[in-house]
Structures are given as C-alpha cells and as structure tokens.
C-alpha cells in the first residue's frame, strides 16, 4: 500500500468542552493512511483535548462536529471499541496503576483487542516472546515487565512504556500526546527511534508537541498549528522550523493560511 492511499481519519467542525469551558472551536483535519501529522501550538490551544476526544475520554464533551475513522462514526464508540478499531493514544501523563503488573496488563489488552477483532488470543508464553522482542525496540530493561504499570517509573521510562504498548498493540492510528515532554535528549532519541520503527504505509500518526525539537527526530509529512481550539495554519516540515524561529506569537496576529483539511482533501 502506498502512502496516502485513503483517508483514514476525517474531522469536521469539531467542538468540545471540558466541564463548562469550550476548548475546541470547530476543528477540521484529514489524515491519510501512512501519513505523520504534527500538531503544534501554544499551551492551552486545545492539542491535548483533541487527543483525548479522539481516544474517547469521557471528561470531554463533544458539542458539535463529526469524526469519521475508517468510514465509521468514531464519536459513537466507547474508548475500548476505538482501541479495537485501531486507535491508540500515547498519554502525555501515563497513569500509574499500582497492583497491576505491566506484562499482565499488556497481555490482557492485547488479547482483548484480538478477541474484539475475532482473532485468536496468544497464550502467556507466546505473548512474552512477542513483548520481549518489542521491548528491545524501546531499549526497555526486562525487569520492567514484572513491575506495576508505570508505578515508580521515571518520566522517560513511562514514555518508553507507552511506545512499547504501541509497538505491541500495533494500532492503525497512533496519537502521541507530548511524547517528548520531560525527556532528556537520550530518552527522546530512544522514543523517537521506537516511533520511527513503527511507521508504515498502513499506519498513520498524529504527533502532538509543543516543541519543534521532537520533529528533528520524527519527520512529519504535515504540520498543523493550533490556536484557540482550531487549526490556524498548516504546511510541511518547514512550518515547524519557522515556528521554532518566530515562536507562536505571530500565528495569532497574521491571518492564518488555508486550513490543512482543505489542503489535504482531493
């Protein structure tokens, strides 16, 4: 399959709020199979809300708009159904779950997805072999397999654990929410290498980040800039470099370029 052969995700006029605060004010975006989209923007622009809404977090209420994933109404689905369809969110703040073993959790998730897709489950031994192999991808110490999910992990270990989960669960659409936050340069490289290894023509990625730095390691096909709950300008990788030079201030002053959705539509 060639890159960009079909529209995997289509977002139209998406509005959402948290508690009583409107965060997304009509957002449009199209993502085709095989593409990597970077979403940048200042703090509070709605980047993480977009990520949460796509994954189905119930603390966000969608008030208007449409999201179609592989031709299906995504917003009607529970988070676990979205996961079964192939959506994966790498959390900005991975949650600690004391008392739940990392491998036990991952195997349960892996097999839940397989069951939902009508596929055969893997037994503990076969799964362990798969997980061990994927752990190498993110240079994770095997001792992390037996620890509780994210409990006592450093910032970098948590992010690596997210990428490990992604490598094992093999989503169609991965949404990486500030996967670079809190990482030193070595950890960033490991995480980015893991992400790059998972790029394929069948998989799309939305990389949410505040900083251009991450995009030196994960080269996007498209860059979008969010402000005030909308995508205000879109472009290629060069847009990220411009943001690095000029900061976000000019975005709100200058009239935005054509939104990405319009650009990407055939």
């Amino acid at each position, binding site marked *: 399959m060639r890159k960009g052969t079909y529209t995997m995700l289509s977002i139209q006029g998406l509005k959402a709020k948290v508690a009583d605060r409107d965060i997304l004010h009509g957002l449009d975006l199209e993502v085709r199979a095989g593409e990597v989209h970077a979403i940048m923007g200042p703090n509070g622009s709605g980047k993480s809300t977009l990520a949460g809404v796509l994954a189905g977090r119930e603390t966000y209420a969608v008030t208007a708009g449409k999201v179609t994933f592989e031709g299906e109404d995504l917003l009607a689905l529970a988070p676990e159904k*979205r996961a079964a369809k192939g959506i994966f969110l790498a959390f900005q703040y991975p949650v600690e*779950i*004391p008392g739940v073993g990392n491998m036990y*959790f991952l195997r*349960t998730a*892996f097999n839940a997805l397989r069951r939902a897709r009508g596929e055969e489950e893997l037994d*503990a031994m076969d799964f362990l072999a798969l997980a061990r192999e994927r752990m190498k991808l993110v240079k994770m110490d095997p001792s992390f397999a037996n620890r509780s999910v994210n409990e006592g992990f450093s910032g970098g270990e948590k992010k690596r654990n997210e990428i490990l989960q992604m490598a094992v669960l093999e989503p169609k659409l991965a949404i990486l929410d500030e996967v670079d936050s809190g990482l030193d340069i070595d950890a960033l490289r490991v995480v980015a290498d893991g992400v790059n290894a998972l790029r394929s023509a069948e998989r799309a990625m939305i990389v949410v980040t505040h900083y251009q730095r991450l995009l030196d390691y994960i080269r996007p096909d498209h860059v979008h800039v969010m402000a005030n709950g909308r995508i205000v300008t879109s472009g290629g990788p060069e847009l990220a470099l411009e943001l690095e030079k000029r900061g976000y201030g000019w975005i709100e002053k200058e009239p935005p370029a054509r939104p990405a959705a319009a650009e990407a539509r055939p």
Partner: protein
Amino acid sequence: MTLAEKSFADQLERAAGVEWRPAGEPSFVCALRAAGRETFLRTKLPTLKHEDWRYTSLAGLAAQPFGPAARARVPAADLPPAPRLVFVNGRLAPDATDLSGLPAGVRMGSLAAALRERPAAVEPFMGQVATTRDHAFGALNAGLFEDGALVDLGDGVACAATLHLVFLTVASGAPFAAHPRNLVVVGKGARATLVESYRGEGAYLVNAVTEIALGEGAQVEHDRVQEDGPQAFHMGLLQISQGARSRFTGQSIALGGQLARVEARALLGAEGASCDLHGLYVAGGKQVLDHLVYIDHARPRCVSREVFKGVLDGASRGIFAGRVHVREGAQKTDASQVNSNLLLSEDATVDTKPQLEILNDDVKCSHGGTVGQIREDQLFYLRSRGLSEALARAMLTWAFASEMVQRVGPEELRARVRRAVTARLPSGSLLREVA
C-alpha cells in the same frame, strides 16, 4: 430480653450444670464458664450505645432464636493439606482431621480432649490471654464452648508445616450457634504458621475465640480467612499476648456472612515485641463486615503495624476501628495504622475510626486512611488500551485488594484467597491469571 439473649441464656443455664457433673470439667474451666455466664447475663448483647458497637447493629442477630449446635456430617468441602484439625459445628470431626506430618515438639488436637487428659498444660493459659472485661461474645464463648483446637509448641521448636484449623458450620434446619474456642501456646523462640478458616452454609452464628500466647522471641504468622455463608453471623475474638522480642504477623481476610465482626486484640506486654495486624474485607449486597483492632503497647520498644483495606459494593457496610494504646511506661513505641477503602457503589458505606491514646512523649505513632472510588484516569487508561469497562473496573479493584492477598504467607492459601477474593469482585470472573 431479645430472642437471641433468651436462647443464649437458656443454653448458659443448661451449660452451668457441668459444674456438678461427676465426670465434669476441671475447676478452672468451671470458673471460666461461670464468669462467662455471669458476664453475659449482665452485659447482654451490646447495642449501638456501646462505644465498641456504635456502627454495628446486632438487631438482626438478636431476633434469631438460636438453639445449640446440631450434629452434622462433614461436608465435602475442599480441605487444606495436613496437618489440619477440622471442626464441624464446633465439634472435632476426627474423619476429616489429619495430623500427618506434624513435626516433633508440636502438639495439636482437641481442646476438650486436652481438658480431660492433661488439664495442667491448659490451665496456665486458658482464659488468661482473652482477658477482655465485659466482652459479651467472649463471655458467651466461655460459657458455651464445646471444643476447639489446642496447639502447643515447645521452646525452640520451629514448625515449617502450616498448621490448619478449619471450622465448618452446616445449618440445614433451625438456626444454631457454635462457639469454637482455641488456644495456641508458642514456646520461647518457637516458630509457627497457623491458619484459621471459617466456612459454612445456612443460618447460624459462629462465635469463635482464639487465644495465642507467644513466649520470648517466638514468631507466629497467623492467617484468618472467613468465608462463612451469606446468612451467617460471625463473631471472632483473637486475643494475642506477646513475650519479649516476639513477633506476630496476623492477617484477617473477611469475605462471608451477613454480619461479621472480628476483634484482634494484642497485648505487647514485654519489651521489643512486634505485632503486625493486617486485614482485607470485601463486602457486597447488604453485608456488614466489621473489624476492631486493639493494640496495647504496655512496655517499651514495641512496634505495631496495621494495614486494613476494604472493598465495598452494593449496599454493604465496612467498619474499621483501630485503637492503639501507648501506656505511660512504653517509651520508644513505634506504631502505625492505615485503613483504605474502595467504594464501588453509591450505596456502600464505610465507617473508619482511628483512636490513638498515647500516654508518653517518646513515641512514633501515625495513622492514615482513605475512602475513595475507582479513579477516572486509571479507568480511561485501561479502556483506551482495549479493556472493557467491566474488566477495567475488575482489574483496578483487584489491584487495590491484591496487596493484602500477597501478604498471605502460605502459597496454597494465598492461591485460595486470591480465587475467593476475585470471585467476589464485580466482574471478577473476567480476571484471568491475575498476578
């Protein structure tokens, strides 16, 4: 007088006759029974006005016309490995009992038999550990017990085998009450692992008293697993007396019964003793599961630790009262207490009451606790990876409870407790091979 009081009083009156039986019990037992009888007739069943019973109503118990324990055959319950003593309706069941593998220096058998055959071994301890005054259920037990276990380890005996005491109660007809009584004497420097299990079916009261005396430097691990039937009333009094530098580690797993109360009372009566009393209660429906823990720091340099966790679903209630008493002379006391609760429904409630009474300055005491619900962020994290909401909730609930299950020492018992706990969790059947 309530129905239960009347039936217990009638039983006490009949039991009082033992004093004049020609082949009767030793005089110290007669005295114990008489004191119990006198105390119960005076105190009667405690009401909500009683400080120790503020959150637990005995109205349901008081309305039951309990008769004496019926004879019953041993039900085909899965029994733990030997060495084990099995009691059915408060009486020893010799067919189910198996004492093979009992190491030298360890004696384990029927208390009633020991009172007939070697009362001198029992007299210095019986009723001496369980000295709680005006304790209605302790008194009732003293007045009415028929049998129970006597476990006796000589000085320096290290018993590697886990000693199992199993109490089955089978009420096929009219409700009745059984009052098992156990005495465990662990000699100087001796070591033992002891498990008390309670199971049953039908409507009954099991009112158990266990006295454990630890000699100097003795070490005891004690697991108490209560899986009584859904109609049962369970009253348990565990009374521990510790010698110098002895170490007691106890765990109370409370799962069954419509109303179950366990009191664990430890006297740290000599220097350098350490006592861990932990517990887990998992309740649903209209169950009431109550724990009262009392630790008496009577001497210097003793350490106590309490961690109790509760999981409450339906309209169930959990009660935890933790009392730490540091006496004037007990310098360098180190005591901590934590009670955490997970509420799975809006109708479930918990009353948690830490009480520290500290009568000297040179101590380190802490207490803490939480009452919470399943966290939204954890639930979303699991669901975003493909786990159904029911499975995610079961996994998080298990994660909360599992810390206490892991503390159960004997592996075979830990596996059993794990199965019993997960079976009681909402959607617990979805959990497979939990770590």
